[in-house]
């Protein structure tokens, strides 16, 4: 039995490495169901991230060594690659990663200074500037592409046979006219396998395993994932009293980036709230916004926008969620002191 560590890893690079290791199950599951395009994207993103990091450090006249090797750029690259459509062309991956690292991180002063989540900033920018690529190049897990197909998608010639809208989007738009029973006849949403969505449940499970390991390693706390997932479950369960119009709980939970984001995106400590209580509220806020944007918005998924919006709210959350200091009657609330 391996003893649970008392503290988080005592070096930034090891923190980053631990998160990267925790992503491995998810990456394997993604590759199995969505093809090797996932790995192509990850490789491209890592190389781009490192190049951009080195470029920015050089331009900012900062030493390349300790920052480039702390794996933070690598992690940003992997996260953005996993968030992008699996059949994304190479230029989309490069553009997304470059904007993450340059605009999301170095423009604000590099590691530890970014006000918003760099990966989500890159993702949102791409969603706005390349909407077609970002909404139509998602792999259908029922038609996992072979290496050749994945490679041509990477070069910009994605086959319509394997790509489409995201499953979440699919359920919302195409099944709007159908009843829940009719929708479940689609093999993607067939109840035959675990009663979930083909492929996605395994990906979600893989991310869950990696995420739980991160909690075990004390890199993250339970507050963030529980806050997001519980909020999504509660809200979507409440509206599921009418299954024919509302997207069911399990689609909300498994089909989108829910589990991945709960453990790996919202947990970015720099741009999130900092106290445990604050993290909980931060995640609940993301959960509410995600549901609202998914249901009433026009975007395929909503995590990116919800996270960015809550990033702006994080300093305020910090002001109202300070723990009660020992020896004081109550916690100090609100901003204070000259800034």
């Amino acid at each position, binding site marked *: 039995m391996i003893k649970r560590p*008392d*503290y*988080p*890893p*005592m*070096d*930034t690079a*090891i*923190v980053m490495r631990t998160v990267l290791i925790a992503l491995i199950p998810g990456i394997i599951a993604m590759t199995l169901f969505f093809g090797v395009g996932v790995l192509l994207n990850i490789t491209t993103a890592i190389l781009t991230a490192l190049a951009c990091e080195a470029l920015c450090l050089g331009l900012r006249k900062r030493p390349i060594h*300790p*920052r480039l090797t*702390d794996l*933070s750029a690598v992690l940003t690259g992997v996260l953005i690659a996993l968030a992008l459509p699996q059949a994304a062309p190479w230029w989309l991956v490069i553009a997304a990663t470059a904007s993450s690292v340059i605009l999301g991180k170095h423009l604000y002063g*590099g*590691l*530890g*200074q970014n006000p918003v989540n760099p990966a989500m900033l890159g993702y949102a920018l791409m969603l706005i500037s390349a909407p077609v690529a970002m909404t139509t190049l998602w792999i259908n897990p029922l038609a996992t592409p072979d290496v050749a197909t994945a490679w041509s998608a990477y070069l910009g010639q994605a086959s319509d046979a394997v790509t489409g809208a995201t499953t979440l989007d699919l359920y919302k738009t195409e099944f709007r006219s159908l009843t829940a029973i009719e929708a479940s006849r689609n093999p993607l949403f067939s109840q035959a396998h675990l009663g979930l969505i083909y492929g996605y449940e395994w990906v979600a499970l893989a991310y869950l395993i990696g995420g739980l390991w991160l909690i075990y390693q*004390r*890199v993250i*706390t339970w507050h963030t994932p529980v806050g997001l997932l519980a909020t999504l479950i509660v809200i979507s369960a409440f509206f599921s009293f009418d299954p024919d119009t509302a997207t069911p709980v399990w689609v909300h939970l498994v089909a989108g980036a829910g589990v991945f984001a709960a453990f790996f995106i919202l947990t970015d*400590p*720099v741009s*999130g709230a*900092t*106290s*445990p209580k604050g993290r909980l509220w931060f995640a609940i806020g993301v959960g509410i916004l995600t549901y609202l944007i998914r249901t009433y918005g026009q975007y395929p998924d909503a995590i990116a926008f919800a996270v960015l919006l809550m990033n702006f709210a994080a300093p305020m959350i*910090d002001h109202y969620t*300070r*723990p*009660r*200091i*020992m*020896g*004081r*009657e109550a916690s*100090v609330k609100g*901003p*204070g*002191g*000259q*800034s």
Partner: protein
Amino acid sequence: MAEYRIRHCERQLEGGIHPETHKDLSTSAPCVFIDDPKRLVFPIHFSGGGPGESLVSIGDTVSQGTPIIKCRSGIIHVASRAGKVIDITDHAITHPSNDVSASIIIEPNGSKDQSYLEPLVWPFDADTLRDRAIEAGILGLGGAGFPSFKKWSDGTQTLIINAAECEPYLTADDTLMRIDTHSMIRGACMLSQTLAIKTIVIGIEDNKPEALEAIENALKESRSDCFFDIVLLDTKYPSGSARQLVWLTLGIEVPTGSRSVESGVIVHNPGTLAALSRAIDGKPITDRIVTLTGEALTTPKNVIAPIGTPISYLIEATNTNPASLASITVGGPMMGYPVTDFDAGITKTTNCLLAREVEIPPESPCIRCGACATVCPVRLQPQQMVFALKGGSLDRAIHEGLTDCIECAACNAVCPSHIPLAEWFRLGRFEAREQANEQRLATEARERFEARNRRLERIAQEQEAKRAARKAKTADALEKARRAREESA
């Protein structure tokens, strides 16, 4: 036999860390007396108890126990050995500033001349004991150096003996409890009986079985009617911090900005109580147990050394060449500070000299992981405080709770970015105190000014009233005279 019980602490220290203790390094060798050094150094302003003044002149011959420094708080420091005052000059001091300060230099002459105080005869009252503590120079020997008599207020319910010694490497208290148990127990009993304290709590970490056994044996022999409540604490840093210890043993949260005394609790270090016991017999503090430890010393051990012994002499006592060390840590690895000039003499609060080479990895930016907050025993958010301090906003850091920081440095130990958080907080707290002082002085000046204005105004008003009264009187008289003239006319 004194009544006692041993219980496991039912509370858990919030936050805290489990550093490697390295205590066996210095406890494996027996504690020894060291020979008198060639010279003793007594800083006039930094011997503990506040700034002071010299009571001797160059050329004076002093006995062991002769008062040499009187501090502003009243505390008197004595010569730890008989000898001659060879100089009063600026000398290196054992202080975080690593500065020089006016010091009395005494050259011991090896004579056994003693000039002790009259033993106190029981029964004596609290004031007598306070006076004795002042004359004998009793300070908190745990490291803070707070004048002990200031803690002894009437209406105290509990005395806590802080035997936790949670700092890694330190074994001075542990050693004292093993070899000087009776003095400690006697000092505690005397103090308790004088202040009518019923319960004496001993908070001790569970990694000191030998000390615990010694205490039990001493209590079995003691004839005191005090009740001893021995609380076994989990070995976790910083359970020996006064506030944390009060909470762990009694469940009392000492309110922010007040001392534990105001909550009816006195916390004393074992060494302080042993020194008090000897002071009652007439012997002021002249020696203390110092832990000489660290991987860089050849033979680490505990020694009983005269106050004022130069650090270099103690390093040599461990068969180590002082020149081989760049600096030495005074205190433990968590809260200690480096001293580079080994000519400085130890003071009453020097509990440990730690020599080891630590490689501090380069600092990287804070990623707000919050590890520091999870180990903070006072539930502060160090990441927020250091952000404010680095941004130059002391106000915001204070708003985040800077003044509640106990400077335990647990946050330093877990920071993945290797940020010297505790150093920032020490600096910030120092600045905050300065600021508060300035504010107090400004307020006082303003109040004086306003009081003067009010006084002047009152005087002016009184004079005005008098003048008006005189005027009215004159007018009255004139009126009367006019009427009289009219009537007579």
